[in-house]
């Protein structure tokens, strides 16, 4: 009898035959409150979109969007302002590239070790330690990059005119890469943990060793989850602000030399908004135009990443 109840309850979500025909008034009020709370997050997204794109549209009335996207000079505060966003994009891409070169291989390697090699007890010690890295405030990473990593790089890379400047993209990118390792590692490890053990055992039965199982079975089987982790890591690098604002410099630069200073999109937003600029001016609107571009970049990457995670969940769960 009780088994019957359970089955019907599981099928309907609630045991409908036990419930009153009309739900109580209080229950309806509660439902409305819960739904309202859930809609706050949707309202937040709408708020972000409106607050970014309305001033951005006004900005593009004053500055043609083509000029914004293809211009190579960014000097919005000068007497003769130029609004070409490419130098900021170069800064962002260069930092992101350096951070990815650090974070993606190291994150994946850490994930393979934690998932395939480390025993249960070792994993329980190492994983939280790695995750502490993700919990350290980015302003402390910025301080670390500027006051320890940069002097170290300047000592390490001497030479003619190519000494790293006090603010340089290499230092900011390297430190940002370390910060992102746990993001990449933890998502990749989740994906690898979702690979059924049968696949591993099959490969072992055919005579594979652990390295072959890891690289030829587990990693390919978890590929969509690993790609999601990579994309999310890159998206975090694009959106990271404090490290680049503190260690990367405040001057836009079109050069691809990582030893020089660069201003990224995020650093521009933070450094400009921190000053006393009045609402409605063109310089105030540039914050939103650059912010909109940043949001579009990260939004697209997040969506791809979310889709990829769903894909591996569907395959194995």
């Amino acid at each position, binding site marked *: 009898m009780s088994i019957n109840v359970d089955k019907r309850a599981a099928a309907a979500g609630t045991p409908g035959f036990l419930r009153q025909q009309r739900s109580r008034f209080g229950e309806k009020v509660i439902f409305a409150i819960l739904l309202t709370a*859930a809609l706050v997050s*949707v309202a937040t997204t709408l708020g972000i979109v409106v607050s970014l794109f309305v001033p951005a549209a006004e900005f593009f009335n004053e500055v043609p969007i083509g000029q914004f996207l293809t211009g190579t000079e960014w000097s919005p505060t000068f007497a003769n302002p130029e609004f070409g966003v490419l130098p900021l994009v170069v800064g962002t891409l260069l930092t992101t590239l350096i951070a990815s070169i650090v974070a993606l291989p190291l994150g994946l390697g*850490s994930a393979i070790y934690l998932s395939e090699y480390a025993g249960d007890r070792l994993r329980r010690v190492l994983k939280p330690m790695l995750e502490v890295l993700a919990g350290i405030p*980015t302003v402390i990473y910025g301080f670390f990059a500027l*006051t320890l990593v940069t002097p170290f790089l300047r000592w390490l890379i001497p030479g003619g005119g190519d000494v790293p400047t006090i603010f340089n993209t290499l230092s900011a990118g390297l430190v940002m890469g370390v910060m992102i390792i746990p993001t990449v590692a933890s998502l990749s490890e989740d994906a690898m943990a979702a690979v059924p053990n049968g696949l591993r055992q099959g490969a072992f039965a055919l005579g594979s060793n652990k*390295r072959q199982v890891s690289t030829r079975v587990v990693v390919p089987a978890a590929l969509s989850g690993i790609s999601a982790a990579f994309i999310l890591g890159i998206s975090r690098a694009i959106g990271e*602000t404090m490290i680049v604002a*503190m260690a990367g410099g405040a001057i836009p630069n079109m050069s691809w030399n990582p030893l020089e200073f660069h201003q990224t999109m995020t650093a521009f937003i933070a450094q400009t908004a921190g000053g006393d600029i009045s609402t409605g001016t063109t310089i105030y609107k540039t914050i*939103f135009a650059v912010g909109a571009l940043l949001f579009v970049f990260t939004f697209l990457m997040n*969506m791809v990443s979310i889709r990829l995670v769903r894909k591996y969940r569907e395959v194995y769960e």
Partner: protein
Amino acid sequence: MTTLAPPPAPEAPPELNLLGKTGEPIRERLFRWMLMACLGVGLVTLVVLLTYVVLKGWPRLDSRLFTEMPSSISPDTAGAQSAIMGTLWIMFFTALWSLPVGILSAIYLEEYGNSARWWNRLIEINLLNLAAVPSIVFGILGLAFISRGLGFGPTVLTGSLTLALLVLPVVVIASREAIRAVPQSIRAGSLALGATKWQTIWRQVLPAAIPGISTGAILALSRAIGEAAPLLMLGVSFVRFNPDGLLSDFTTLPVQIYGWTSEARSEYQVLAAAASVVLLIILLAMNSVAIYIRNKTQKRW
């Protein structure tokens, strides 16, 4: 019979060798070392960073940090009292706004929202996306809508509302996991005894999920108090007084660390390091509480 003696000894070793451990081939070993090195880079950097910050801040890790106010004139008499107090105020109000909304959203999504409906799927995808939106974008939202739009300025209210929106997805995702971990049989039992759906949630599901929810809440709040970028967007700058209400200006430790790092004089770098140590200790304390709760109340169903 004696002719059927056990097989000659020389044959046994190769057979055993085939099935037994042959020792790790060199490529295997190199691969394993490489993986350990990957993990090692992160852990070594962590140790270097923590050691560096503590050593650098050591000369100024004294009571002045707690009794004096920030100053950009004389580093000797500068402290971080208003930043520490501001951090605590911000933490309290961010929790006040984000926890109820986040937990209620989680209850809706887990207990009421049927994920076959498009609007519930929209809410879920939206949350996942919001969790990955750069914090500075939340700063832009706070600047445009709350600070300038509603005219609250860079006050405790604006800062805590902005940070609450920032950590809301973290609270919801953690609370959902905690609620999902409560077994279905608990709900079925409660409903079978005649409880309404809300009575079941309020008296059975939530109490069982509280340890998981509080762990998630603490982690969300530790993210909030470490954020500097959105607050800088709002125009939060160094103030020499403690907040005295929701509409009071404020500063926090990360903002203060950023400010001191930007100062040219090296004494301020020491102060920045000392303030970083204080911030790290606060975060460490919060995380220890989270781990303690998790270990203490881990329930096997």
